[in-house]
């Protein structure tokens, strides 16, 4: 069996005062396999973006382990840290805010190479940057333009080109298409899938749009209030959601079909239904077929 490219074990990220912290990420465990897309979904404030940002070390974690490519990320030597910075990349939500408006596209893409001291030869670097632009459906004429000269979809392509510049093994995509129009979303999603097929890289795809997530993901993890409630294969999770929160979330997604919409029944989620007693162990339990649900033993017996 192949080893996961990313393993997250009991990850915790707390904000605020030590005696009364906000537990944005509260003890979550999951993994991403090479070449796989794991969708991470949940409502705003559930901790999904914090999870992504903590993994890539934009935030310092409060506890737990992040193992990337077989190595604990808090024990990296300077050299290994540089490699980590190359192999794990991020795409951000807002294509307007994530590109420096005073740099040309060429400068934006060259910056990473210069920091890492790759491509001493200017000509070689230029060719590589042109290749990058072409791989995201732009062309070399775009290199000398500034971000404001591009549409939102094109800017997100530039963000993706930048993420691809070091042939990463994993890209954390934090709501990469939420700011784009529907038809442009489809273009970007298709492109991300083509790039994945060509290069065999893995995605941690963070989003709240469940229909797009289902479409792009192999497996999906559902977060709520800093905890991971359910993870499973995309179709399994959609067709057979087990946790009541997942059921509620799925029941709220509007479908582009008036007849299903007229029949749709919304399910509310009420945390009090769990009524966990203090001595009960609530944890991710295996329901088979790579489907894990956060529940107590009693719930497990009822739900399976």
């Amino acid at each position, binding site marked *: 069996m192949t080893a996961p490219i990313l393993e997250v074990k009991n990850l915790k990220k707390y904000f605020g005062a030590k005696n009364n912290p906000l537990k944005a990420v509260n003890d979550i465990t999951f993994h991403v396999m090479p070449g796989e897309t794991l969708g991470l979904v949940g*409502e*705003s404030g559930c901790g999904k973006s914090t999870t992504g940002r903590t993994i890539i070390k934009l935030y310092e974690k409060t506890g737990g382990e992040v193992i990337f490519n077989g190595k604990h990320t808090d024990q990296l030597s300077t050299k290994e840290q540089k490699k980590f910075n190359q192999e794990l990349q991020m795409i951000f939500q807002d294509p307007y805010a994530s590109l420096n408006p005073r740099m040309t596209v060429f400068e934006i893409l060259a910056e990473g190479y210069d920091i890492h001291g790759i491509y001493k030869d200017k000509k070689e670097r230029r060719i590589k940057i042109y290749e990058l632009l072409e791989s995201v459906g732009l062309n070399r004429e775009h290199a000398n333009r500034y971000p404001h000269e591009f*549409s*939102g*979809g094109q800017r997100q392509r530039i963000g993706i080109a930048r993420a691809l510049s070091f042939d990463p093994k994993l890209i954390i995509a934090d709501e990469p298409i939420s700011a784009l*129009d*529907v*038809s*442009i*979303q*489809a*273009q970007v*999603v*298709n492109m991300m*899938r083509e790039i994945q097929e060509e290069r065999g890289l893995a995605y941690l795809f963070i989003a*709240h749009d*469940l*229909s*797009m997530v*289902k*479409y*792009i993901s192999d497996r999906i993890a559902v977060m709520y209030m800093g905890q991971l409630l359910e993870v499973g294969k*995309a*179709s399994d999770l*959609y067709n057979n959601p087990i946790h009541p929160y997942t059921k*509620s*979330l*799925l*029941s*709220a*997604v*509007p*479908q*582009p*079909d*008036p*007849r*299903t*919409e007229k029949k*749709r029944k*919304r399910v509310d*989620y009420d945390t009090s239904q769990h009524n966990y007693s203090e001595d009960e162990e609530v944890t991710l339990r295996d329901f088979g077929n790579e489907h894990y649900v956060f529940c107590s033993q009693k719930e497990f017996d009822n739900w399976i």
Partner: protein
Amino acid sequence: MNEPVLQMKDLHVDFSTYAGTVNAVRGVSFDVYKGETLAIVGESGSGKSVTNQAIMKLLPQPPAIYSSGEILFDGKNLLDLSEKQMEKVRGKDISMIFQDPMTSLNPTMKIGKQITEVMLKHQKISKNDAKKRALELMKMVGIPMPERRLNQYPHEFSGGMRQRVVIAIALAADPKLLIADEPTTALDVTIQAQILDVMKEIQKSSQTSIIFITHDLGVVANVADRVAVMYAGEIVEVGTVEDIFYNPQHPYTWGLLGSMPDLNEDRDQRLRTIEGSPPDLTDPPKGDAFAPRNPYAMKIDYEQNPPMFKVNDQHFAKTWRLHPDAPETEIPDIIKNRYLQYTGGDN
């Protein structure tokens, strides 16, 4: 069908900018009937928000210019009204819900005051009665503990609760028409579902007409009675929600429906995309604005802007492929399947 509450006739709105004049709205006509929800869908820049801000005359002039057309409401052309007269229409006869509940409330004013303000301005009502009515409205939109909430400030409310407050304000003076501009876009899906339910319930009891602007076709399928699809400042297709979702005629509508995955769709299928991007409206194309992105475009599409062709009494589409002389176009499978599923399910 009953009388229209609002009739828009051939509206043109231009913006003068340094880069030239932008023809943002290019001849939009539609009716809104009593008690119905008309959804207007389109991508950013399609003119859907400008069209509706024109109804409220919220566009600053300059740069906006209402070049021609009429907006008939209550027998008056809103475009002829003075700013003073418009103030009597806004919030009273026509009110608006905006996308961002974080910025559409006054952060320094208690919620109760923001709701009663509208009533005190437009209606002859005592402060006490206005407060009572505010409490009723808050209950109606599903805000728990309204007596306590009345004295709180917007920052003490969650996003969903704030949007409920905005809806309560919009309904305070019993408007005939409610314009909702992406009211749920900033909200989470579970909250969105609650807000849509609230809006539908209110409409049922008050018979308010709603113009619902959105880019989310799932939301459209949920709320709309009729749908108008906008592209590059024009309505390219209009019909009942069933017409648009199960028997769409315009290739742009096909593209929109095709580019959205539904939850039942197989992952192995590629999403259909609409290649290219919308035209620059400082220099709108001569023919059909969608022609360069339309894989089914014919020669005439590049030369003449098509008129609205009738599909049935309520369904119209602005595409030359409906001209009697046009050759048959191969309708994409995904659209054909929608139609088959629909008619198959009916029999």
